[in-house]
């Protein structure tokens, strides 16, 4: 199976260095639309969709393979190898932060630097660890995603044409940015929110920057600080942006933070 087609890979930019962006749970590569183009002058930009999201090949979704984050990490390594990337900069949002960590452990020469946006090594609280969620809340989330399945099919096929406030969108994609097969969405949610990668952090050998938002209920400051404390030699920058998706809500801040690091 051709990884580049399977993961809807898009390559752009004129630079000699490589930069890979990985989207998180909920949306697809479009969430980098305000950030990635800023680096096209200096980098070769690689964007992709995880299997099950965006324009990826849904028929490639395998319950067994994608029941752990390693399955997604393997895909990422495959994509990078298919493009012969080396010493790339990896920018991963949300759960893709850990997917990037796993990829870098599997293929140590792949990334020269990593930028983790809103990372969390584990979402469910544990003894002496605050992840932010209880198991009951995650179970509620999974059930809730089913409730939005019906609304999903109606709302997720956007009629962008009708949005005269943002005419530039009218010419762009006709696919919805957050639409995916509801079964796969539920499974990805489960994998994400029940993941635990705390033990993988100390093994990271790549210089890593963590971008932490304030008032991010998904990955709180405490969680971000934990990640920084466990990855050797890592740095953390506290953004003024709030919420979980600074790449959309405060892209300029994210761009300058990344630029300063690479």
């Amino acid at each position, binding site marked *: 199976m051709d990884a580049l087609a399977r993961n809807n890979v898009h390559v752009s930019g004129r630079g000699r260095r490589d930069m890979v962006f990985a989207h998180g749970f909920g949306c697809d590569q479009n969430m980098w639309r305000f950030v990635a183009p800023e680096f096209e002058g200096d980098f070769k930009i690689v964007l992709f969709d995880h299997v099950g999201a965006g324009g990826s090949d849904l028929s490639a979704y395998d319950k067994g393979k994608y029941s752990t984050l390693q399955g997604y990490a393997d895909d990422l390594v495959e994509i990078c190898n298919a493009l012969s990337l080396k010493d790339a900069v990896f920018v991963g949002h949300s759960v893709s932060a850990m997917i990037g960590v796993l990829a870098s452990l599997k293929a140590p020469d792949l990334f020269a630097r990593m930028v983790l946006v809103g990372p969390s090594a584990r979402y469910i609280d544990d003894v002496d660890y605050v992840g932010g969620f209880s198991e009951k809340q995650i179970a509620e989330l999974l059930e809730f995603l089913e409730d939005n*399945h*019906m609304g999903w099919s109606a709302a997720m096929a956007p009629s962008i044409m009708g*949005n005269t406030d943002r005419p530039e*969108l009218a010419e762009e994609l006709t696919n919805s940015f957050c639409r995916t097969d509801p079964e796969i969405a539920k499974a990805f949610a489960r994998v994400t929110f029940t993941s635990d990668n705390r033990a993988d952090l100390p093994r990271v050998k790549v210089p890593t920057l963590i971008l932490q938002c304030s008032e991010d209920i998904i990955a709180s400051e405490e969680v971000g600080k934990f990640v920084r404390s466990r990855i050797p030699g890592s740095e953390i920058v506290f953004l003024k942006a709030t*919420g979980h998706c600074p790449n959309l809500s405060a892209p300029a801040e994210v761009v300058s933070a990344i630029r300063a690091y690479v």
Partner: protein
Amino acid sequence: MSESGPDDYRDLFEHAPCGYLTIGPDGRIRKVNATLAVWTGVGADKFIGRRLHEFLNMAGRIYYETHIAPLLRMQGFFNEFAIDFETAAGERLPVIANAAERRDADGGLLFTAVVVLKATDRRRYERQLVDSRSELRKGLATERETAELREQFIAVLGHDLRNPLAAISAGARILQRSGALKEHKELRVLDMINSTVTRMSDLIDDILDFARGRLGGGITLHRDARPLEPVLEQVVDELRTASPQRVIETSFEITSPLKCDRTRIGQLASNLIGNALTHGAKDQPVRIGAKTEGDEFSLWVANAGEPIADAAMLRLFEPFFRGEVRNSRNGLGLGLHIASQIAQAHGGRIDVTSTLEETRFVFTMPLTPTTS
């Protein structure tokens, strides 16, 4: 200065039949209408300056951060999403909401407007639909598993029954080949061994077809559009060879292309003709015809002889029904039953008329399959 009345804009906003709130570019609630305040039991002033997700349950908060907010940013609007508010009393308030961004001429975000409708009944209904569909899916998956196991069992059973038969045939062939048996009577015994084995093999086929049909699932077809006539001709030839003293007349006019399971239709024809040969007048021809007309394919088998008794007509297609003739030479009484199963599987039917002049079985099916 005009007096404010019940239909002035401010009032329309406050007391709209829906909840209405606006969120500033900083993500904090600017305005909220009285309806939403009443629904949630949270005072309007408690909303102002807070973030929307503070009023949702945890699942809603996560969904807001991972789907709603990003989609609004990327698309400018998001319609018909479902979220749950948490009322002041700690209860769940399920709603359906629309949200749209409002931007100025330079594209700067002014505010986001969110409208919510109470959706308790609708959400409950939808949840029931989702639940029953997932039950259905599970049921279908189990059925598919059971069907696969049943198919495997039938295949193994068929193989285990046919293997010893093949051995018997092989034994007869060995004896034949050896040339040691020279007497006419002995050679006839070898012939009879072979023909008896064939009869047994046919019985096994019938039983397995019956098992497939009765244990559920019905007969699976493998349709294609290859010509049917040659198959029918071959069936008639085999029956002529088996009963050389009988006359079988054919009249085939299949002009339109026909998508069917040729083997099964051949089997249906064979069963109908066999039935006609068994029960019809021995000195009269058995007639078989087939044609396509309009959107229908029909195949009929007619014979002369004693009409079928009224009582028997009702039970003709029942399994194991053998009518008056009780003779193991004529099989288990499954032929017509299996024929009707094949007819059904093709979305068709078999009709019978029986008078003093003739008995006629007519199979009809639509050319375009209505059932898959």
